[in-house]
């Protein structure tokens, strides 16, 4: 805050032409278009003011930016700060002493700027040193720092497209058997043979939750099977919107099965939004009517075990599906079949057998395999680097194996998962290095 106050003061002083002679300005200033950005960043580097070497002599630096308009007479770069020419310019930022770089993130793409830097004390400012070149921030189409993400994304997309096309052409897309979904017909069949109803509980969250949506997908299949077997399907809901969606879904399923006459919307009803009120309602229904098949598909919290235990006690075949990790053990222990996390979301593709959905599912699996592979490799390299390094407190030089393992670990962290791209770039954190990297020329 103090630096900002000083900068404002300096600005006022500068525009009035006041420039104290006892603070030396930065030596040279260079402004460069920042790489791999969307065209809004400019990197500014400078050589420090001689006063910077004296502790407490300056508080820091302020950075000025001037938008260069056509016809301002800037055919050549001014060498000195001209208060008349840059009237109205305000510092765009400040840094404390010792720092010699600044990234301006508020530039506009394809707009030319002139930057300047001045050293400031608490109430004084040096003259402004102007950048040697004008700079125009430009957007780069490819962020080279994230080139690995591009490669991984293209790989996964390519695999996904390949599988979709493969499936469309009639090729085999093997999806492992999901017991919980295979058991739908078995559960509904049991209810039919026993002359009892099928109960479907679509979770306690609203329709905007992805688990509820996945549950409704399974409901469609359960409803279709119920229609084909002429079994009674009952769907109590905890949200009004879920009830509406469930009604639409079940009606469509009955229609698809050629049994629109068997559809009864009164069997899909709303109980209450209140968690345990809903649970008590469903539990009472189960104890009274003893459904032979119970499906729990959606988001569940503490009510999961209450419902599943009640269903188990009445001898129903129970199939559960949720992505709630904390509730899965309860469902697994109390239900006949449980769809775990991803299985639940894969239900739509699995049940429909639609080539596009199956291909997409397979492609996503390949993505997960790549992620798992990187995870395993990363863990392995980090472990090897850890165990092969010198002991803590030891002065021994690390061996070549440790160095190579550490380099590989760093590469994964910084290049594949970080922002370094293919190769580790040199740090452009000083004026001299920038000069060296750019060959002395500005990136305009």
């Amino acid at each position, binding site marked *: 805050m103090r630096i900002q106050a000083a900068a404002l003061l300096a600005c006022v002083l500068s525009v009035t032409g006041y420039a104290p002679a006892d603070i030396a300005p930065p030596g040279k200033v260079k402004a460069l278009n920042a790489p791999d950005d969307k065209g809004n960043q400019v990197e500014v580097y400078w050589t420090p003011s001689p006063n910077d070497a004296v502790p407490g002599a300056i508080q820091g630096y302020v950075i000025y930016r001037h938008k260069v308009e056509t016809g301002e007479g800037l055919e050549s770069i001014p060498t000195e700060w001209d208060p008349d020419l840059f009237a109205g310019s305000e510092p765009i930022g400040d840094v404390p002493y010792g720092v010699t770089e600044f990234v301006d993130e508020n530039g506009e793409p394809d707009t030319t700027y002139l930057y300047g830097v001045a050293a400031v004390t608490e109430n004084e400012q040096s003259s402004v040193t102007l950048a040697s070149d004008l700079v125009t921030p430009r957007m780069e189409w490819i962020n080279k720092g994230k080139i690995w993400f591009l490669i991984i994304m293209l790989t996964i997309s390519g695999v996904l497209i390949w599988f979709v096309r493969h499936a469309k052409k009639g090729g085999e897309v093997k999806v492992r*058997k999901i*017991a*919980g979904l*295979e*058991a739908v*017909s*078995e*559960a509904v*069949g*049991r209810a*039919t*043979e*026993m*002359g*009892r109803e099928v109960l479907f509980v679509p979770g306690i969250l609203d329709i905007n939750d992805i688990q509820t949506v996945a549950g409704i997908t399974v409901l469609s299949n359960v409803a279709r099977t119920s229609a*084909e*077997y*002429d079994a009674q399907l009952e769907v109590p809901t905890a949200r009004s919107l879920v009830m509406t969606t469930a009604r639409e879904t079940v009606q469509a399923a009955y229609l698809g099965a050629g049994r629109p006459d068997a559809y009864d919307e009164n069997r899909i009803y709303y109980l209450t939004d209140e968690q345990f009120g809903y649970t008590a309602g469903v539990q009472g229904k189960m104890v009274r009517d003893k459904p032979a098949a119970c499906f729990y598909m959606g988001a569940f919290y503490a009510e999961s075990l209450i419902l599943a235990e009640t269903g188990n006690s009445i*001898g*129903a*075949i129970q199939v559960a599906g949720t992505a709630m990790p904390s509730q*899965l*053990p309860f469902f*697994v*222990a*109390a*239900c*006949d*079949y*449980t769809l*775990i996390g991803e299985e639940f979301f894969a239900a739509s593709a699995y049940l429909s057998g639609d080539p596009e959905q199956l291909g997409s599912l397979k492609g996503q699996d390949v993505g997960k395999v790549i992620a798992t592979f990187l995870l395993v490799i990363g863990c392995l390299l980090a472990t090897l680097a850890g165990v092969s390094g010198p002991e803590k407190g030891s002065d021994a030089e690390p061996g070549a194996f440790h160095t190579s393992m550490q380099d590989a670990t760093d590469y994964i962290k910084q290049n594949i998962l970080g922002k370094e791209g293919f190769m580790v770039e040199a740090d452009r954190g000083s004026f001299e290095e920038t000069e060296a990297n750019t060959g002395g020329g500005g990136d305009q």
Partner: protein
Amino acid sequence: MTDTPTLDPDKIKVILATDCGSTTTKAILIQYVDGGYRQTHRGEAPTTVEKPFADVTMGVVNSVTEIGELAGRKLVGDDGRIITPATDTEGCDIYISTSSAGGGLQMMVAGVIAEMTAASAKRAALGAGSIVMDVIAANDGRRPHEQIQRIRDLRPDMILLSGGTDGGTTDKVVQLAELIAPAKPQPRFGSDYEMPIIYAGNNQAQGSVSEVFSEGGFDLQIVDNLRPVLERENLGPARDKIHDIFLEHVMAQAPGYDKLMGWTGAPIMPTPGAVGDILQTVARIQGINVVGVDIGGATTDVFSVFDETFNRTVSANLGMSYSISNVCAEATMPNVLRWVPFDMDERELRNHVKNKMIRPTTIPQTREALMFEQAVAREALRLAYKQHKEFATTLKGVQQQRTVGDTFTQETGGETIVNNMKLDLLVASGGVLSHAPRMHQTAMLLIDAFEPEGITMLAKDSIFMMPHLGVLASVHPKAAEEVFDRDCLIYLGTCVAAAGNVKAGKTAFSWSFNGHSGEIKGGEMDLIDLPLGETATITINPVRGVDLGAGPGKKVEREIKGGTVGVILDGRGRPLALPEERTACQATIQGWIDSCDMYVEEEATAAV
């Protein structure tokens, strides 16, 4: 139930048994010799159920007379009846018979859910030895009018109606009855004969079902529910009732059977039902798992007993003559030809297949034709066994009890109970297997088609004696088991097959017995001599990942029986994979043929 006099099994010393097939009536004589029961003589004669004879007993008397002449024992009296009881020189203590004449027992079954009560009804019908013509279920995908039309088109001997657990659905069961009643299916035999309906469903729907069939034209018989709860099957009462109706209605309508039933000392059984009974008896007495197969011209029957659970399937379109075209179509010609070690002209083969279909009694005239026919047999057996595995399952609709440990290993109901690793005895019958020129060919056909794993005994029923023994098992199980073991089966040998991760060219397992030892590599087979009647203790050390019965990589030490073929060591792995490329496939097959001495020149000429 037919009333038969109860005989003391210990007093039964001479047993006469016949099997009245569609074309041949086969008779065998079993006698108590040297402290044990042995099959001593056999005879056969054409079946005389059709016109102009129209009396099945004529064929029976002819075949029995042949046996009598061979045995020097008078079995048929001057009145034309079989003489009972036995004396020192004539007659028999008991006469028993099976029958498959006139197409056997044909049934239609119905249940509420195809995979539950309808499947149980089908198991009951097949187990009783019938051919199931169709299964009607609420979820079979057909509209009611299509179901009614189908029932009208069928002419079953009887209908088995099931559905609902006790106290379960009534509506659906009555709906099924209401499909059958107006369809008024007509029986195959006898226009004055009322269609027998066996109701074995929900006990609370019995009244409603009776009401539906009360209008006449049906003979409704009510038995206990075959699925009182979904967790348990109770097929016994339904099977018994099927046998009773088979005798009282179906057999009574067939020419001469009323007379034959008066001669027998035990109820006449449908032939496949009797085969099932003997296999169950043997499996129970010896404590083993058994698979039996009977490959005929039109159908292939597969029987299995795993952990005392019996299953039978009839693959109606898989056979070696009338159904040979269907085998080639279903298996596809490339799959058939992969078993043939040389190039064959496909057009010529198709002609051969069609000729076999229209002239079913022809036999192969050349070695090439024999190889091709055995290739077709392999595929027919493979497909029939596949169907059997799909049918022989655990019950569906059963509540599962889980623990958290089951999180990633949830198994569904309806998994097959057929486990080749647990299979102890594989029995073959049927022309192509029983009458193969060399027993080695029979053994290889069984191994290639059934892919037994671990240690499995191979045998064949060369004269198809199992039906006779099936009926005998109902009156004298000990005699049936003794004859089955000593005379019915011809032991081919023991198959020692590796399952699991077998790598081609790498050692699959090492073995040793009777001073012999060696190694079997992946993809290879070997044949070691162990004569019939001898036993040996084999020690097998499989490599890691290969299973011979004790688990992957674990040593196995077991007693094995010898046979006419010997011990077949199979390192090909399971499932059996043949090279895709034709030349490589031919070379592989030729290698296996050579290893097992399947075809040798002398035998090939003998086959001509």
